[in-house]
């Protein structure tokens, strides 16, 4: 029993170990602040025996930009929707919407990718960061709805009653009592949602596509860290960069996860 449970942590150690050992080799400041090298540059560097130049700045910028835009759109909608579903959990509409949230949350990311391709990339006649943002936002939305809904449902109903018994309006009660009281859990859920979508490769493949330089124009194709990992995986000359890019992604994801745990413990009411 203990052995089987311990066996479970073997993959974790194997993954972390492999990524850490291989990844540290190339992890220099220039790796974080320069764009991806071309295959040609990498080939020259390899044959002449020097380290491959360049890094993943284009991916980091792209990931952050799309993530921030997706969050700005998805977080308020998700929180209000979650409050609604929690407050009226006994109505038919709320039940249907709640099941729809489950379905959307369980939809494979590849389907979201091609749907956003059909919705945005085809009408805009080209891949763009906007499309990537929409795909990430749709992935994020049900996660935030769910965590808000759970958080609000767990609040004692006497907070809501006390606020309304003071003559408070529904709007101010939600904004000043309900959401602040549930804030810890909502924040944890949001951090987890971000950490979940930050590593998503598939929905970006057919939406943001990728870009070799740092791109700030959101109507143009843009890269992301997971996209670069996929690109390095498929391109033998760039493979030395693979592990460092994975290490960066892994560190970000684990940091987000750990901080969400800390926040969850801190904000317990």
């Amino acid at each position, binding site marked *: 029993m203990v052995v089987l449970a311990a066996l479970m942590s073997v993959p974790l150690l194997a993954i972390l170990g492999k990524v850490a050992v291989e990844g540290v080799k190339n992890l220099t400041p220039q790796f974080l602040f320069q764009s991806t090298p071309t295959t040609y540059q990498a080939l020259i560097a390899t044959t002449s025996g020097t380290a491959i130049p360049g890094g993943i700045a284009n991916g980091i910028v792209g990931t952050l930009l799309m993530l921030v835009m997706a969050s700005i759109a998805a977080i308020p909608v998700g929180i209000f929707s979650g409050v609604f579903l929690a407050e009226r959990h006994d109505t038919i509409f709320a039940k249907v919407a709640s099941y729809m949230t489950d379905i959307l949350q369980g939809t494979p990311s590849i389907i979201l990718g091609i749907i956003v391709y059909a919705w945005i990339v085809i009408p805009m006649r080209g891949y763009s960061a906007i499309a990537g943002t929409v795909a990430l936002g749709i992935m994020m939305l049900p996660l935030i709805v769910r965590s808000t809904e759970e958080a609000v449902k767990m609040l004692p109903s*006497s*907070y809501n009653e*006390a606020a309304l018994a003071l003559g408070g309006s529904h709007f101010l009660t939600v904004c*000043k009592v309900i959401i602040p009281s549930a804030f810890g859990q909502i924040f944890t859920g949001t951090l987890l949602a971000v950490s979940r979508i930050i590593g998503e490769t598939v929905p970006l493949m057919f939406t943001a596509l990728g870009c070799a330089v740092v791109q700030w124009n959101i109507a143009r194709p843009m890269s992301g860290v997971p996209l670069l990992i996929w690109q390095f995986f498929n391109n033998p000359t760039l493979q030395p960069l693979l592990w460092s890019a994975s290490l960066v992604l892994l560190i970000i994801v684990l940091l987000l996860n750990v901080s969400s745990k800390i926040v969850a413990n801190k904000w317990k009411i």
Partner: protein
Amino acid sequence: MENIDKTILRIHDLSVAYTADKLSVSHVNCDIPRNQITAIMGPSGCGKSTLLRAINRMHELYRGIQVSGQLWMNGLDLLKTNAMQVRRQVGMVFQRPNPFPTMSIADNILAGYSLNGLRLDKSQRQTIVEQSLRSVGLWDEVKDSLTKRGTFLSGGQQQRLCIARALALRPSLLLMDEPTSALDPIATATIENLISELKQEVSIIIVTHNMGQARRISQKSLFMYLGELVECGDTEQLFSDPSDSRTRAYLSGHIG
């Protein structure tokens, strides 16, 4: 005319139904005296909290609860007035102390104003916080920690904070739903003394299933049984010479 002045709230034919086929509070008629303490007592599930919550329209927060009748206060029928205005004039204290967990002590006192969207300037805020805390005897205990969270106080202090929160809006009527049932005997005694003093400022209706408490603090008592108002009258008289056999049975411990 004199009679109306002495009455803060006239309950006329009030009924509450959770489900369509059963009345949880049926056809209650009663006058609540001004600047006195009225106790509603009765065994669990007799509808005393349901009656209380009908007065400040709390039943509207939940679906499918039907309330009928009239509640006359200051010349207005509370059931036909805007619910928020009603709740501003009728404060409520709950069974468990429930200061808002993310607000400081001062913000909790001012919650009634901020939740109504009313803006106050700094001196007004200070006056209201100090007056409200003084009126519940909490000022000296917390005056140095007004910016701390209200949830760090002890249970009895939290409940007094909740009373102060309700009083800050200067309501004409204060509803208390078993305010001491979650507290220890010492905190209970403090709250009871406080309630007795507060009747100078505000009329109070208190729900309790503790007969002793009703006898100790109230001037008028209502006895409810199975959703019906069985008897209502002077506390002294109701305890010493109940007119209904069910009241007598309850007071002597034969039912309950």
